[in-house]
């Protein structure tokens, strides 16, 4: 098939987008699982959509392609462009403009036959559409909410839905497109507005979620209707995606790495599990409503008191205990403030004017360790119920002494 910059299936391009944006060090030959033709086509497409952000380097392995974006200076998520590249047929685009030209205001109502004749006249018979094609398109548009139907006797009358004035919303749409879930929908709305300069910029702004927008929106749909879903779930080390049936409960979003996770109840295993959205594909919403949805949400709320990150359990008693002490100087109250504002659960205890303790019971200590390390230079004691992890934590710090020639990395020298 001839190359086109538009695509039918977004799933095909998700992995490439992530690879070019998040990693960007693999050369063409390293995309082992893909054909080189496929690589060339997808790279060309991404370059067509996001050329301004595309960079190239030459290495011994070949030319590397990557996307480099300083999201603090970019007021609009550039990755949203990829979601505006859906392919269509010549008939689709022609019908679209013809239908809305004939139904130019909500007061105009037409039958299928009248629309067919009208389209024929409008296009001077350049293309003819049969009843079935037009009926299918109108059904699709009715489901999207842009066309309405009304029955008059045996006749079905079609009209356009009422217009919604969003002209005063440009500032809030600009802001929400970048900050709230499924922001790409805001970008779609923004495309309908007059060109304007956004008043908002963003710091610590992760944009990768854009490529999972379709998955996120479908999951929200399932959550709000409390329905079971089936998903295909792959993983870093699980190339073959498995199909699983779940009750979706909540989406957890990180503003420190941009990851999004679905927290869902796995009925067969009777467990609360976490699934990365970037590993999920092919979400199907079932008809069946989960009668226990509210109960499961309550159990999740209890579990959340012990979640540092995304790992969770149904039973909140299955936790690990964590304590660590820090030392501050007299003028370092801001460090205590840091503990208070950055902790996500647990508590801070004052031992004396210069020493403070953080205490928590969490499902997964591993998730918390990077945060504890941010206090390196003042940690005086750590105590984990998982002694193996505690030893590892201390050993890692010693390893860092060695890495930076601070000295004393060997076991005996550390005091």
């Amino acid at each position: 098939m001839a190359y086109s910059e538009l695509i039918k299936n977004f799933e095909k391009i998700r992995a490439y987008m992530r690879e070019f944006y998040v990693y960007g060090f693999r050369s063409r030959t390293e995309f082992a699982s893909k054909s080189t033709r496929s690589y060339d086509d997808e790279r060309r497409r991404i370059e067509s959509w996001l050329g301004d952000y595309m960079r190239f380097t030459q290495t011994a392995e070949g030319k590397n392609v990557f996307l480099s974006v300083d999201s603090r200076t970019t007021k609009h998520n550039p990755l949203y462009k990829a979601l505006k590249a859906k392919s269509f047929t010549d008939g689709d685009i022609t019908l679209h403009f013809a239908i809305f030209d004939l139904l130019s205001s909500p007061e105009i109502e037409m039958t299928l036959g009248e629309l067919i004749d009208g389209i024929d006249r409008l296009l001077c018979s350049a293309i003819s559409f049969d009843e079935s094609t037009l009926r299918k398109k109108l059904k699709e548009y009715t489901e999207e909410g842009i066309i309405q139907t009304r029955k008059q006797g045996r006749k079905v009358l079609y009209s356009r839905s009422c217009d919604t004035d969003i002209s005063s919303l440009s500032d809030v749409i600009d802001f929400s497109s970048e900050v709230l879930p499924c922001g790409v929908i805001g970008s779609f709305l923004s495309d309908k507005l007059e060109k304007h300069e956004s008043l908002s910029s963003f710091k610590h702004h992760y944009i990768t979620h854009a490529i999972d927008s379709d998955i996120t929106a479908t999951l929200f749909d399932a959550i709000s209707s409390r329905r079971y879903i089936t998903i295909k779930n792959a993983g870093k080390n699980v190339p073959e995606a498995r199909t699983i049936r779940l009750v979706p409960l909540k989406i957890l979003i990180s503003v420190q790495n941009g990851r999004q996770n679905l927290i869902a109840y796995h009925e067969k295993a009777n467990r609360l599990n976490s699934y990365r959205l970037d590993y999920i594909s092919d979400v199907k919403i079932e008809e069946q409503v989960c009668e226990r949805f509210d109960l499961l949400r309550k159990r999740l709320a209890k579990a959340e008191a012990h979640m540092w990150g995304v790992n969770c359990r149904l039973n909140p008693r299955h936790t690990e205990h964590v304590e660590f002490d820090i030392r501050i100087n007299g003028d370092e109250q801001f460090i205590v403030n840091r503990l208070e504002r950055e902790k996500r659960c647990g508590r801070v205890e004052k031992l004396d004017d210069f020493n403070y303790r953080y205490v928590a019971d969490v499902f997964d200590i591993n998730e918390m360790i990077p945060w504890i390390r941010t206090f390196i230079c003042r940690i005086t004691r750590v105590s984990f119920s998982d002694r193996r992890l505690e030893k590892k934590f201390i050993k890692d710090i010693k390893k860092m002494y060695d890495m930076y020639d601070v000295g004393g990395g060997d076991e005996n020298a550390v005091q």
Partner: protein
Amino acid sequence: MLFSELYSAYYNTVAAIISAAFSPDVSEKELMGYIREEAFSESVLTILPSLKSGKWPLLNDDLTPKLSNAPSMPLTNLQKKWLKAISLDPRVKLFGVDFPELSDTEPLFTSEDYRIYDRYADGDPFEDEGYIKHFRMMLYAIKNKRAVKVSMLNKRGKRVCVKFIPTGFEYSEKDDKIRIVATGCKYRHFNLARIKSCSCLGEDYHLEVVPKEDIKKEVTLIITDERNALERVMLHFAHLEKQAEKIDENRYLLRMKYYEGDETEMVIRVLSFGPNVQVTAPEDFKALIKQRLTMQKSCGLR
């Protein structure tokens, strides 16, 4: 549900071209301009040729529209549901705009359906009356290009008075705070929540001072890909301008650009990856890491 041609750059571009084609003087070159502006870099090869050739029979041979009206499309259910969802957010309410009537629309999501789990707890008081008043005053000043006089608490808690021209808002999702981006004074940013009172200055009030430029610096790291460190590091620093390369089987080199004002934060963030990340350049950044490790040695951790 969301990846649809209805929202596509091509449909938007064709709509813009048809609207422009109603003007009798529009040239083909001008129509091409819409494609460059609205669509992708290779779209020029498809859109106008398809319209001109009659493949998409929406224009006549003389490029006038076959349609009778400038194209428009009502909002889809998905767009309305998203609008309804954002209308419930307290940060959105700061803007003080009236949303269209959406009473028969269910929100796409509510605050019950998602949670940001690693946001700092001392975010701005978005529902505080004084805060809302200051936000709207700044919004007015930005839109009308007016200088403001502000009384606020500085970092040390001391009350100070400053004059500046607000040019925009900068929101940090991690801190959950809004800062005013400013010019006309030596500081570039002001925390909105620190403002105690503010007023607009006269239309002819000029401030000539240019804020000190926020200098970009570069740091180079070596990542050892153990315990999934490569992915964790690359995702964590994904929001920065960066370039990575593979050194050997499990080591990678990462060069990142950051703002000088964020250096302490960068040091802490690098430390959070422990021995899987080693700073190799520049020396002054390395020295900051070493300094913290040296202090740690004296903490008696066993």
